[in-house]
């Protein structure tokens, strides 16, 4: 029986068999005999999550634009499927051709989230690929990229290459180099040494890590003679208008998280929110022109049949000609019944005009992220919005016919007190009052306010990389405090989670190579899909750290002195450590830093010659 038939035999016995089916419209099929490089792209989570991810779509289309390579998709099989695959000896396979992953030349893996790291070990194991780079004599080279690649150290022994920054060009370079390496018939290690010279490529095995007596890092240095750079600078695509972007998107059969056209209107963010890793590592800001966006949208609407275009970016309200873009989009696509939506709406942008435009086609939910409950704490995190901004935005929205507002906050931000947390309830109360301030005949019925409070995770390459995470008991105390305070505000739905998952996330976000052992141990005990609260096993994680003799508090809860060497200091994310430190110090004085479009804040991006900052 063929592998394909054996896979299909399992599909009647698992949840959501479309996850493993492939054959979607616009999926790329090629003749394996006619390509030189077979590239498997693994999104280490379920199909529904991975298929909603823009970066994967971009790289899939970029690689498949080459005649000499074929990129196929791989997703983490859900636990039911993984169990059956192990039972029947079915290896991890690609969706397009159902080829075992171990027969590919390259395996690209995107690191979107620390809590998907164990899924990578699970995937390698299901694929029959040795977990450790040092043990691999054949099979695909393993390349990781994405936001978590800026601290890949906990994964260091398992991966071959780490791609920092924008993937469009560096991915092509790793493929070009693979062809050269293969044609030359060189040993496996030689590919890694050669790849270390590609801009943005970091090869962990070529670096030596030494530690101080207190367990902190003394130095990370290239191995003598390896030719690897002391500092690896991220790859940068300067001009997004000339960068590759998909003209076709795969249209899934089942429902996925974001089932729509994703149009990236710009990359990077100039706001400088101090908790936000994306706001740092994706600098500088690079916009696509309206003409280019209209053309991309035209192509994508006709090639997919989707009825919604989401204007994506870290802060879409900041697009320099947003009203014009929204207007043109609505005008072009209203007749085709295509809705235009704006995610991650900031509360301080001038909403009204844009909202009116999008509303013509369909109302989308209003989601606002004040992040903190008091002005003092919003200043600490440099979320440059005021209560007056929020009040104006929600009042506008209620007057335009919105009736549902989602408010996102974080608990455990640096310098937070009980008073800041109670400020969240106060804000919710004021939002409610805004709704009732709109005359009954002018507002939509059915007010719904959702308050979501996540637990703050300090991330590498942010001004808060020196900050301790708030300890478990205090987080729980503040959650309860807020829950009680919100119970007195009518019509508010409060969402929060146990802090244990965020704690493990904090450990890995700022972890070092020693954590690899604990990660492997936790995975062997059964940890995978850790980001799914129904799968997450806090007990096993704590056991794994203990057995490995590692103290997770050392990574998550320890205040870090400003002169400490970090495990990721040799990886240059664009902004400098000096800038991050200045921001950390200003945070403690609750001092704001303005949006750098209003004046250069000296983050370090000018070193890349790519920033138009004045």
């Amino acid at each position, binding site marked *: 029986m063929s592998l394909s038939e054996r896979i*299909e035999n399992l*599909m*009647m016995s698992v949840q959501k*068999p*479309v996850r493993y*089916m*492939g*054959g*979607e*419209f616009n*999926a790329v099929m090629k003749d394996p005999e006619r390509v030189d490089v077979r590239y498997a792209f693994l999104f280490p989570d379920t199909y529904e999550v991975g298929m909603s991810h823009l970066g994967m779509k971009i790289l899939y289309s970029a690689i498949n634009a080459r005649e000499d390579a074929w990129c196929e998709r791989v997703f983490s099989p859900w636990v039911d499927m993984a169990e059956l695959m192990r039972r029947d000896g079915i290896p991890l396979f690609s969706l397009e051709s159902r080829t075992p992953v171990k027969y590919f030349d390259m395996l690209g893996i995107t690191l979107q989230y620390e809590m998907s790291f164990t899924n990578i070990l699970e995937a390698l194991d299901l694929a029959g690929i040795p977990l450790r780079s040092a043990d691999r004599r054949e099979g695909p080279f393993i390349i990781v990229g994405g936001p978590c690649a800026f601290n890949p150290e906990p994964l260091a022994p398992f991966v071959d290459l780490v791609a920092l920054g924008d993937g469009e060009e560096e991915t092509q370079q790793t493929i070009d180099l693979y062809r050269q390496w293969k044609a030359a018939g060189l040993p496996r290690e030689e590919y890694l040494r050669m790849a270390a010279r590609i801009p943005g490529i970091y090869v962990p095995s070529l670096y030596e890590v030494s530690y101080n007596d207190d367990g902190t890092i003394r130095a990370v240095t290239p191995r003598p003679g390896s030719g690897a750079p002391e500092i690896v600078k991220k790859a940068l695509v300067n001009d997004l208008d000339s960068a590759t972007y998909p003209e076709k998107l795969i*249209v899934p*059969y*089942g*429902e996925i998280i974001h089932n729509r056209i994703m149009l990236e209107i710009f990359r990077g963010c100039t706001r400088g929110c101090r908790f936000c890793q994306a706001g740092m590592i994706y600098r500088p800001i690079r916009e696509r022109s309206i003409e280019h966006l209209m053309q991309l949208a035209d192509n994508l*609407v*006709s*090639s*997919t*049949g*989707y*009825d919604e275009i989401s204007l994506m970016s870290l802060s879409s309200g900041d697009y320099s000609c947003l009203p014009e873009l929204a207007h043109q989009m609505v005008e072009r696509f209203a007749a*085709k*019944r295509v809705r235009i939506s704006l995610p991650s709406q900031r509360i301080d942008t001038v909403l009204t005009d844009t909202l009116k435009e999008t509303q013509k086609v369909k109302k989308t939910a209003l989601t606002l992220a004040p992040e903190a409950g008091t002005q003092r704490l919003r200043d600490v995190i440099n979320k440059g919005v005021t209560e007056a901004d929020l009040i104006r935005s929600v009042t506008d929205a209620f007057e335009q016919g919105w009736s549902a507002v989602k408010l996102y906050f974080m608990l455990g931000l640096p310098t937070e007190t009980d008073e800041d947390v109670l400020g969240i309830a106060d804000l919710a109360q004021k939002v409610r009052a805004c709704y009732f301030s709109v005359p009954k005949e002018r507002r939509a019925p059915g007010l719904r306010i959702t308050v979501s409070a996540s637990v703050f995770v300090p991330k590498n390459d942010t001004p808060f990389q020196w900050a301790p995470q708030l300890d478990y008991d205090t987080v729980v105390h503040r959650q309860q405090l807020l829950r009680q305070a919100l119970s007195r505000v009518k019509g508010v739905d409060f969402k929060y989670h146990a802090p244990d998952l965020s704690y493990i996330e904090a450990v890995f976000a700022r972890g070092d190579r020693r954590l690899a052992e604990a990660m492997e141990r936790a995975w062997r005990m059964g940890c995978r899909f850790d980001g799914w609260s129904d799968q997450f096993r806090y007990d096993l994680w704590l056991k794994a750290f203990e057995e490995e003799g590692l103290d997770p508090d050392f990574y998550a809860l320890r205040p870090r002195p400003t002169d400490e060497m970090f495990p990721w200091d040799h990886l240059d994310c664009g902004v400098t450590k000096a800038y991050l430190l200045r921001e950390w110090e200003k945070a403690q004085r609750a001092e704001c830093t303005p949006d750098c479009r209003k004046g250069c804040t000296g983050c370090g991006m000018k070193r890349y010659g790519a920033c138009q900052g004045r």
Partner: protein
Amino acid sequence: MRALIRFGKQPRLRFISHLDLQRFFQRAVNRTGLPIAWSQGFNPHPVMSFGSALALGWTSEYEVIDIKLSAPMGRKRTEDAVRAALPEDLPVLEVRMVDDRHTAPMALVRMSDYTVRLEGESASAILGQIPSFMETEVVPAVKKTKSGERTINARPLVLSMEPTGPDSFNARLMLTESQSIKPELLVDLLAGMAGVEAPRVRVHRRMLLGLDAQGNPTPLMAL
């Protein structure tokens, strides 16, 4: 004007549920570039309907979708546009243009032809029961419905049935709202008669049929 489109569902895509296929076609019709008619009302959608739902896991060469157009279109152009909007595993097999008064295919379906393949060792024992099944007048069967279990007589729901090889048979089964039987249930009954365990089956739909003016079974697309 409406387009009746017969298409197939190849083995690879047999795990798409009917609901997912409906959603898929909402986007597929947008890709055709054809003048699609949209419903009125609060939540407008393309006006289309299916001949009959296909169960998860089945393949088919006779799925029918009925798409309403807002302007007249030629048959060939419609066929080309629809073909370009579907993946190769949903091949377009036949297109017929009808006017708006044509009865919806869904309302015309009376029966369906299937080929059923039996996997495993028990195939010949099961196929051996076909003659006695067809000679019996009452074959009680427990049918599971949303409201619970109900005992029915399966025999009149089977219009014809004959082996086609060492592990497969063809059957023409009733398919109306009140009278229908799935091939899997039929295999369960045959297996019960043979005293063997029901094997895994692969079901393929060969045709949907209605009745012509004389009451003769007729392929749906020809009605």
